[in-house]
């Protein structure tokens, strides 16, 4: 047994760290190579203005899949998870609002102010998602089966999955089949009549994707996200110190297990000989000999930037090229001199608590759809859908005393933005148009928020705008896609990233994928990383 083999991991994001952790536990010698000066990938905390620290990209956790957290002994790590309750505050321009608590009964009571019928349905809906949580959870944990020559384990996994699907009963199975390809707007209206309620829940089906709530297939995204957290509005938790604390803790666990981690170590090239990986070349020219490589960066970057394209099978290369990864999310951080006052929130005792989770801006399905419409033509939304947090309410250490941070995921901001050419006539779409529009996007976000919190503009001390173009150039996400590639029916499970290569292996011997571009790829759960480690260990042994 070739234990002690050196396996390099490209990228120091949470998935790669988890893969490295498991590899070390399995007796390998993993080496994590991170291009930037800090590990963390999309889960990082940075100082964007003197004294103000924000979770630069992701601002809430998945959460980590339970078995992964257990294996890491996460509770022993130096990472305190803050769990706001209510999880979501959703204001409407007319001054109404909805609060979503951890406790379903309490949320139902809140919903009853709008509709008794919906209040009753809400608990039923939460139970439905709970049922699906266990079934889809099972699918998320397995390696997608090989279609041509399924292994005994594939059969066993499928049998188990089949059994758990059958536990849903006839109705449940039909619901699953029906809902998957459905538009999330239709899905939520099967349960609810209140516009705002529909919008908040439907938003999970479009977050991070190039789908509007009326796009078919968006319910599949919602169900996939529900496999990470079955609460109807999803997770709102974040670590003290921002998301960077999470990856720092993961890195600690990995190091303790024997992983070597290097930052400022940009991999420039994967050296391949006779169809197998032999080593890595870093940007500074250093060469590292390895037995195997697991790439935590996205599939397009892995195959087109780090490999010599002639080494790829043309069919495979074409499929990777067809892998859709045009992002739609931008990020805006505001350094605030004080707290914004939301008009939809009565200043009664403890009201600040209501703002400590996520703030959902997008009061109606039509609002979300219109926000999406703009992106189809290469424009960012004039009234965007925003997923906002004010992390300083629970974690004041992120900002100077008495000051606050507002962090907003902005949708839709298409990777390729329309712009006029020099002659002013032709419109073309390009990622480089973003630099000229950066401030416009920030202003649009502030203007949108000011409709709900009119005092916000007067509090702003500094604004940082991270465009999809920045996501690609600074943070290494091809196409600026936060999930490394679109979450769509044709890019999930046995098709993620591409058919025939959904089992973390690649056509290059010794090269594996372990990032979000692989199954299941559903946010900060570590599932891709853990699944990949299992396959790599099996393969190399």
């Amino acid at each position, binding site marked *: 047994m070739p234990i002690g083999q050196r396996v390099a991991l490209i990228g120091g994001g949470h998935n790669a760290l988890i893969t490295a952790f498991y590899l070390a536990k399995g007796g390998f010698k993993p080496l994590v190579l991170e291009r930037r000066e800090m590990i963390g990938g999309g889960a990082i905390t940075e100082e964007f203005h003197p004294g103000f620290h924000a979770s630069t990209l992701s601002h809430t956790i998945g959460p980590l899949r339970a078995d992964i957290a257990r294996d890491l002994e996460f509770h022993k790590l130096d990472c305190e998870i803050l769990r706001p309750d209510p999880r979501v505050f959703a204001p409407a321009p007319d001054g109404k609002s909805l609060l979503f608590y951890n406790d379903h009964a309490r949320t139902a009571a809140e919903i009853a102010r709008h509709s008794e019928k919906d209040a009753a349905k809400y608990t039923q809906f939460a139970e439905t998602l709970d049922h699906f949580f266990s079934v889809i959870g099972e699918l998320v944990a397995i390696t997608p089966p090989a279609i041509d020559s399924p292994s005994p384990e594939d059969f066993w996994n499928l049998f188990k999955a089949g059994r758990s699907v059958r536990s849903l009963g006839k109705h449940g199975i039909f619901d699953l089949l029906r809902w998957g390809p459905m538009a999330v707007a239709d899905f939520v209206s099967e349960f609810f009549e209140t516009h705002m309620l529909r919008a908040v829940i439907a938003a999970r089906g479009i977050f991070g994707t190039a789908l509007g709530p009326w796009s078919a297939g968006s319910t599949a995204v919602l169900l996939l996200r529900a496999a990470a957290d079955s609460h109807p509005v999803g997770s709102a938790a974040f670590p003290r110190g921002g998301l960077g604390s999470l990856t720092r803790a993961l890195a600690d666990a990995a190091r303790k297990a024997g992983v070597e981690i290097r930052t400022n170590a940009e991999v420039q090239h994967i050296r391949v000989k006779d169809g197998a990986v032999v080593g890595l070349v870093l940007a500074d020219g250093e060469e590292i000999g390895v037995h195997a490589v697991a790439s935590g960066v996205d599939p397009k970057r892995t195959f087109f930037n780090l490999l010599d394209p002639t080494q790829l099978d043309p069919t495979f290369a074409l499929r990777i090229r067809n892998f859709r990864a045009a992002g739609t999310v931008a990020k805006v951080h505001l350094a605030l001199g004080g707290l914004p006052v939301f008009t939809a929130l009565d200043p009664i005792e403890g009201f600040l608590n209501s703002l400590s989770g996520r703030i959902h801006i997008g009061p109606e399905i039509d609002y979300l759809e219109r926000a999406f419409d703009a992106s189809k033509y290469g424009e960012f939304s004039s009234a965007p859908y925003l997923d906002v947090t004010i992390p300083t309410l629970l974690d004041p250490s992120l900002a100077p005393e008495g000051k606050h941070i507002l962090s907003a995921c902005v949708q839709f901001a298409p990777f390729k933005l329309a712009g006029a050419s020099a002659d002013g006539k032709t419109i073309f779409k390009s990622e480089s148009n973003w630099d000229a529009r950066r401030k416009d996007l920030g202003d649009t976000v502030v203007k949108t928020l000011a409709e709900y919190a009119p005092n916000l503009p007067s509090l702003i001390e500094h604004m940082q705008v991270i465009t999809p173009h920045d996501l690609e150039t600074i943070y290494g996400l091809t196409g600026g896609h936060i999930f490394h590639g679109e979450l769509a*029916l044709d890019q999930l499970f046995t098709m993620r990233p591409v058919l025939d290569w959904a089992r973390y292996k690649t056509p290059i011997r010794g090269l594996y994928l372990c990032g979000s571009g692989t199954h299941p790829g559903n946010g900060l759960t570590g599932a891709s990383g853990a699944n990949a480690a299992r396959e790599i260990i099996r393969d190399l042994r």
Partner: protein
Amino acid sequence: MTRHYDVIVIGGGHNGLVNAAYLAKAGKKVLALERRHVLGGAAVTEEIIPGFLFSECSYVVSLLRPEIIRELDLPRHGLEILPLDGTFTPMPNGNHLWRMNDHARTQREIRRHSRVDAEAYDEFSKMMTPMCRFVKPLLSMIPPDPTTLKPGDLKQLHFLMQRFRSLSSEERYTLIQLMTMSAADFLDQWFETDVLKATMSASGIIGTFLGIRSPGTAYVLLHHYMGEIDGAFRSWGFSRGGTGAISNAIADAAREASVEIRTQAGVAKILVKNGRTRGVALQSGEEIFANVVSSSVDPHLTFEKFLDPSELPGDFLESVRRYKFRGSSGKVNLALDGLPDFKCLPGPGAHLRGAISISPSIEYMERAYDDAKYGNFSRKPYIDIVIPSLTDPSVAPPGKHVMSCFVQYAPYKLAKGTWDEQREAFGDAVINAIAEHAPNIKKIITGRQILTPLDLEREFGLTQGNIFQGELSLEQLFFLRPVPGWAYYRTPIDNLYMCGSATHPGGGIMGAPGRIASQVILKDWKKSSRSRGSKN
């Protein structure tokens, strides 16, 4: 005097007539009932303006199952299909795209726009053929129940799995994409020419309330790609004498098999006793009895109008209520004094004999959809135009023409006003959109018929104006059509069956639902007479 039949078929559309014909050929005494004064349902030809025969709703044919043409011997009953050659897409910049049935010529035409695409077109056609071959047998099969462990259903599911596994990796890859992707995304992988993608993706939205960028539309594209006439794949045609002639040929075959057909005999109620159907009551009050009732009208009419809610299980009724119709299209039929003159290809010519598609760009198509999402008809709609009088002069007076315009999007539910108020404005929008490419159109129109989704509902009994009796979206296909658990032509009421487009495999002048339903009815009939026999 009460009359008794073996089977009563509700609705004299093409599926109802196919269903009746097959049942009669198997020796059953069949009565077919049509509410209107003409047969055909949405496959109907009427002289709306003197001298002009309009194929009012459905206007081209391609999906009609070859086995039905053969088994019912339709050519002997007057069916004659005339070829519809190609699709002509005018562009606002003075250029055009003209795809013909002749593959080599189409390739040359595409090469004018892009060399790469001309080559890709070849590859594309090669890939689509096995795709159609894969799906075709599915069109003639009763969908299996994916939730049971019954040997019959498992065998069918296994059959499907094996068929899938027998495909090459390339074919699987494409098939999965066709089943899940949007038409535009799918075509993006193959082609770069915007107008080519726009006009090809148009067939992915027909009869759905989806845009070309919405997942699920690639399947509808395939559904329309499967056209087959006389064994020739991918060909579309007209029926001589208009689309109604197809229905008339089927009706003729049915009558020959001794089906009794009554028009102006609208059904008011399906009679049920002890969970079992006994016949129907007509709007006139007349009651007619039969062992079996087979309904070719849509689930809304069958279950919510002709039956009392108390007669149906609650969860079934809930599924029926959830079934999505959402008509999205309208129809404008024009009587013309001459021929439209296209700016980009002036004068008469072969390009007018095929389909003329107003789908100049992806953005045009998508914006047409955006209007509809918020409850407006498209200000600049997608239009599929044919001029059947060029191929079949019998449908118009000498020197005059009939022009049929299929229009999308026209949402059934309008945000403002009613369709009765908006009808003329809708017609104007359509004609304006055509006039942008063929300015002479306004001068040559001598008469027009505008059918809004509301008209389709009122006049032709298509709930919410959906031309396929329910959206062709993935969650309403195969074993989910029309509702989960009841995709097998049977209903919760004993001896009541469904045989219309709302059942698998769905809409278009295909006839498959009517044929498959007849097989199910005959199979059940045999079973029940056997069990009756054993009791006696």
